[in-house]
């Protein structure tokens, strides 16, 4: 569903992402992790069509993002860490507007259910500017999911949510994957990645340092056998304390 080959992004003298290749099949959840400045956001923004890669190929639901951007974007949803909403539109208007942008008039009928799923029903007519940070985040995700995207990309999706919201968000992400969506989840919360993701891509200084399930990654490095994702991550990004006795 997502195929990335040799993705490279250069900003002047800085190579933010270097030769990244990976794929995410339908139903899989890929955890994208890396230290600050590793190139996670650049990778996600390239995959969402916000920035143009310097080199490489990105295919979303079999559509080349560079050659056929409209079809590729029509199949994906990107939810950034900071919800980007129009302060002057109400909650329900955001959803109706999204339905029009994605040419999905039939999804309008599903708006009440979507509002209920994200506990936004009683805020349907509230302006986005009147919502709390957590509710804005829920609305951004609801807009992203409205057109039933085949590919879902989330950047730190739990930021600003309360414990109940976190639990429901995790269920929503898992449910979308079970329904056949390919999901990329970028987060610093390694426990979340461990809990939800079927595979992990660790990048450091723009390059892939590990890719696969936690067990596969550990299998390639005997010294990491039996370790959790946090220790694997720290070890591979040069911050590990070495294998404990």
């Amino acid at each position, binding site marked *: 569903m997502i195929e990335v080959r040799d993705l490279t992004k250069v900003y002047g003298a800085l190579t933010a992402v270097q030769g990244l290749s990976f794929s995410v099949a339908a139903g899989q959840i890929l955890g994208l992790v890396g230290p600050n400045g590793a*190139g996670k956001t650049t990778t996600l923004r390239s995959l969402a069509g916000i920035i*143009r890669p310097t080199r490489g190929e990105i295919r979303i639901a079999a559509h080349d993002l560079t050659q056929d951007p409209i079809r590729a974007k029509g199949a*994906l949803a990107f939810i950034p860490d900071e919800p980007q909403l129009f*302060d002057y*539109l109400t909650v329900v208007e955001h959803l109706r507007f999204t339905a029009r942008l994605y040419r999905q008039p039939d999804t309008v009928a599903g708006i009440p259910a979507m509002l209920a799923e994200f506990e936004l029903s009683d805020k349907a007519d509230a302006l986005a500017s009147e919502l709390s940070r957590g509710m804005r985040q829920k609305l951004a995700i609801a807009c992203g999911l409205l057109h039933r995207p085949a590919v879902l990309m989330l950047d730190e999706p739990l930021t600003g949510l309360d414990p109940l919201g976190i639990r429901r968000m995790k269920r929503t992400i898992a449910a979308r994957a079970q329904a056949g969506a390919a999901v990329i989840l970028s987060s610093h919360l390694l426990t979340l990645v461990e809990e939800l993701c079927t595979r992990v891509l660790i990048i450091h200084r723009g390059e892939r340092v590990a890719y696969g399930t936690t067990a596969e990654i550990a299998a390639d490095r005997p010294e990491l056998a039996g370790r959790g994702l946090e220790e694997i991550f720290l070890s591979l990004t040069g911050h590990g304390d070495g294998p404990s006795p």
Partner: protein
Amino acid sequence: MIDAALYLFGATLRNRGRRLMRQLRSPRYVIAILVGIAYLGLVFFGQRHGRPTTPPGPSLAAAGTLLLAAIVFKWWLFGADRSALAFTPAEIQFLFPAPLSRAQVLGFKLARNQLLVLVNAALWTVLFWRGGPGLGAVPHFLGLWLCFSTLSLHRLGAALTRDSLLQHGAQGWRRAWPAVLILLLYVAGAVLAWQRLDLPDAGPVGRVAALVTTAPLGWLLLPFRIPLAPLAAQGSSEFLAALFPALLLAGVHLLWVLRADRSFEDAALEASARRAELLARWRREGSVAAAPAGAGRRRLPLAAAGSPLTAIVWKNLTRLLRTVSPAFLVTLVVLTAIGIGLGAAERESRGELITLGGTLALAWAAALSLLGPQWIRADLRGELNQLDQLRTWPLSGTVLMAGMISSSALLLTIVQGVLGALGVWALALERQIPLPGPLVLALWFAGLGLLAGLNLVAFGIQNGAALLFPAWVRTDIRPGGIEQMGQHLLTAGVSFLLLLLFLAGPALVGGGAAYLLRPVLGAWALLAAALVASAGLLLEAFLLVDWLGDRFERAPDPGTD
């Protein structure tokens, strides 16, 4: 505290100077600053060689008094601009927990406001004082400083008092009713004074000027005349005589503000939060215009199915509908009413008044072709900080740019169309148009096409500038310096030249058509010319939007990791 404040002001000034010097390494800043300096120099030079300053006459003094009264009533009725109360987040972090009294913190705020007042007074003196028999430059500066200081203190006091009332549970009308009562008192005073006026030969302006000094309104308006009196003085002795009451009034204001500091922290924190919110909104949306609570009730319908282009137009027009300030609309209606009232007072017959109204409507429709693209921003300029999101939409750049540009162009064309219809109707009613009725109607329709094409091109240029040269578009809500003024002048100048360039072709072709067809079609050749020119402009607009769409898709990345 004074030491700390002086240190902070000094260090801020020094570091800003250093930053400016660093920025001067960039040609963009150098050009902008040079243009800004050249403009200020031209204004200054023009003033030195223009007519010398003469003390304001009774009409100007009356206008100033009424303006001051209007500003003050606006603060009390609708709430003062509370930015005067706002602190920066760093100031809150450092000053509020520091071992300082409320008066000291408020004193810091007043001192910082004084810096702004002094700079403004100096700037106004440089720009508007031209020498001559009136006041010298120093008294002029002192008069301005006193007037601005009093106004600044009053604004602060009004904000604090209204906040205090709010804290005591007085909401909405309950907060405003004392001000409404006082306003009604002034209105009653104006009516009484009007009845006592006996100036049969004076025009409306002369009557209003006399009204301001006629009892009982004259007495009621005294507090508004005092701050302006030093500026209206005819000489040094008169200036000194006017200075004392003005100083006294400013002193009373200072005492009022310092004693009203009971609710100061809460009000200041609220104002600071509001400013932070405005800054955040500016960064998110490129505009500080906020949809007030309840604005969600102002709705435009959006069908479930249809083109994304119309959805973008709907979104942008909804934004405008919800963020346009009711105060702006009220001001517009009041100014129009005053204009019509003054015009009616000087016109002998109803016919003359209708002709005047029609001419004004047509003049406004024409002027909006130039002013509208600067004022109406229901387009990409309002979404510059959301480019990331726009790029994820499954739309071609052309559709997106077409939606953005046509939002503003549609609105402006409708406004101009209504004004044009009113103007044509009024002039036709008075038989001021020497053309047959059907031709006038056809020309109005053709004019709509012409205006639509012109507006699309004009908004295309403005949006193109924002897309291709975002660094030249204002990115901060704080007042800018000379370089920002230079940037604005340059962009406005280049946009105007580009518009002329786009107009040249269609104008030539339309003019040629009129010249060639006139022997055959007579006056109807005008219609042919308008249609040809409209077609030319619409074609140019189409090509421009298509090109901008392509540039949108290829534009440099909106940000880095």
